[in-house]
């Protein structure tokens, strides 16, 4: 309580309270310039997060933003709040001030560090202005809604009855082929609760639609509820449209406009922020992701594709130690060589790190997702207590399986080591990236014979060439 009062006193001195009390048009324009059009905040009477009303009445900060204590509801928006990890703090923060900070954890993104009483957020140490500062009152953190919502990929819209609805959003749609099967994936900003997507079809005109109940429009719609085309079509899909089918509570409808009737089969996905559906001609047995693996269908070119190459570990995180060398060093060298080979094939290659720098797992994922990479590959060396030897490649999402098999096949041929095969595991960087993603373990640095091999530049070059060839084979066969 005392803390809250002190902070209020502090804020009163930080802000111009007389301006905050009014509908200050200057404040409004400042808000609009950074975050788009902010509605008249004076009309807001209550706050609802993903359908649950926040019990505390919202607090208006002039016409800048609305504060509400909804940290406990962040999980419904796919995020969480926690104590700050000191490594995420901006430089120069004395230890005595660290307890003023907290962080928002958003899967697939770098943590957003915020400070009680300061209208600024830090991502990777870089500051970003907020419309208003978070406050601490009665042991609860009050978050500035219109500042936070865009960071979470959530929408914040005011209903005519004065309720400010904060909802997760439908973010993007991808249309691609797996074997002969048209596949559509729809990603959302927060996990989709069971039973919250309804599917419907019409034959004339032929279309299939999905209603995401409780989800607002994302698609960089910037608060707009207008219907829009969100993806080009492919084969039997002419185009994909999305719009807000129902408001307050919101339902976003994604419509697949077809050129002939098709049958849709929804695929269960381990990542609940991804909704996947396979389309087959009526009467055809519905395919499943597990049986659409190996037959190549594509004739794609690697030219122009954006590939993110991720060298594992770095900086204070050395990775696994060998007897004479460190994983981080070899991973970086192999990644750089892989970049060279992929560039020579015409790909646009981005690296999460190109020197001995520490990058968080969230940072690596965020980098790949924000650059809308077509492919993500993370380079590692394995380690174990026993005498294990060989190469393995990991994937997590079904869309990554073919890539994993192609990369492993070429890596195995290039390395000459035992083939430990392709495996599925919940590694962070391949779980939260939205494109086909794999993680390679190109040898065991804990095995002295394999460490001796990987210490040779020519051998690392072989490994890199093998991975590049695997990616090229995947693109040629499946894209």
């Amino acid at each position, binding site marked *: 309580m005392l803390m809250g009062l002190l902070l209020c006193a502090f804020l009163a001195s930080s802000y111009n309270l007389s301006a905050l009390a009014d509908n200050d048009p200057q404040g409004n324009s400042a808000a609009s310039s950074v975050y788009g059009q902010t509605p008249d905040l004076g009309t807001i009477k209550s706050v609802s997060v993903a359908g649950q009303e926040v019990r505390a009445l919202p607090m208006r900060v002039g016409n800048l933003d609305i504060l509400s204590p909804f940290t406990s509801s962040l999980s419904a928006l796919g995020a969480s709040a926690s104590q700050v990890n000191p490594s995420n703090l901006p430089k120069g923060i004395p230890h005595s001030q660290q307890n003023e900070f907290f962080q928002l954890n958003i899967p697939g993104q770098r943590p957003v560090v915020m400070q009680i009483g300061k209208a600024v957020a830090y991502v990777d140490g870089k500051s970003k202005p907020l419309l208003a500062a978070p406050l601490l009152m009665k042991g609860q953190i009050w978050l500035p809604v219109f500042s936070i919502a865009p960071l979470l990929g959530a929408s914040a819209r005011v209903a005519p009855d004065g309720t400010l609805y904060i909802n997760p959003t439908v973010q993007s749609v991808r249309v691609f082929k797996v074997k002969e099967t048209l596949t559509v994936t729809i990603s959302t900003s927060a996990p989709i609760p069971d039973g919250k997507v309804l599917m419907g079809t019409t034959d004339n005109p032929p279309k299939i639609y999905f209603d995401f109940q409780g989800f607002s429009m994302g698609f960089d719609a910037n608060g707009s509820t207008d219907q829009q085309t969100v993806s080009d079509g492919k084969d039997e899909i002419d185009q994909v449209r999305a719009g807000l089918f129902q408001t307050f509570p919101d339902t976003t409808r994604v419509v697949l406009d077809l050129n002939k009737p098709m049958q849709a089969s929804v695929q269960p996905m381990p990542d609940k922020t991804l909704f996947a559906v396979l389309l087959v001609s009526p009467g055809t047995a519905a395919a499943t992701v597990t049986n659409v693996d190996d037959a190549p269908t594509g004739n794609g070119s690697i030219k122009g594709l954006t590939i993110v190459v991720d060298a594992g570990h770095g900086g204070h995180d050395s990775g696994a130690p060998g007897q004479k060398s460190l994983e981080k060093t070899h991973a970086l060298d192999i990644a750089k060589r892989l970049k060279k080979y992929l560039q020579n094939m015409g790909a646009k290659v981005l690296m999460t790190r190109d020197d001995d720098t520490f990058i968080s797992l969230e940072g690596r994922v965020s980098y790949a997702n924000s650059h809308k990479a077509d492919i993500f590959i993370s380079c590692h060396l394995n380690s*174990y*207590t026993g005498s294990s030897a060989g190469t393995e490649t990991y994937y997590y999402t079904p869309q990554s399986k073919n890539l994993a098999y192609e990369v492993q096949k070429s890596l195995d041929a290039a390395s000459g080591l035992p083939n430990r095969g392709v495996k599925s595991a919940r590694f*962070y960087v391949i779980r939260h990236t939205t494109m086909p993603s794999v993680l390679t373990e190109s040898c065991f640095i804990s095995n002295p014979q394999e460490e001796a091999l990987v210490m040779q530049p020519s051998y690392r070059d072989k490994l890199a060439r093998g991975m590049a060839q695997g990616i090229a084979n995947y693109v040629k066969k499946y894209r």
Partner: protein
Amino acid sequence: MTQDNPTNFRPLPVVLMVLILAAVALGGWWLKSQPPSPVLNTAGMTTPSPEVKAPDNKNITLTLFIPNDNAMLEKHAVTDTNRTSAHFADLAQNAFALLLQKAPANFPKGTKLINVKTNPDGTAILNFNSKFNDSSFWHGSALTLMGTYSIVNTMTALPADDFKAQQVQFQVEGKPIAVLGGLDVHDPLKPDMQWVQKN
């Protein structure tokens, strides 16, 4: 503020005292007549152990998933003799102690399983000491997966008589952990048989 003057002290009127005593007596009777308060929220609570009766020694066979030299899990049946209960929390402690004993190199030195809780949704919550998520230990997919799934597969195969674990959530010092050696353990892990050595 004025300081109380002891000379100004006046005893409460007798009537008021009688009323207070009567209210206390009535309150005591009323409280005694109420049923005990129900448990409001069972999520995250330790599974209550039924009363232990007189020792009734029995043999319980645990299936342990122990990492081998080739970074695969091997199933080992271990008979735990002389047990007086088959409660999940007890079996989990025993099973983890056996994993530490049989595959010590697969876990950070000093790792201790502090306590075990269960959720009605089938989640076993294993709360370790801080040694467990020593980031300098968990390197390499093989080491990470073997350590993690030896625990998850073992815990979900325990033949407890009060709880059947479907999935496992890791905690350290009472707080959930997000990542273990690059593995996303933010949400509970289900058993995974791809890591088990095929004969």
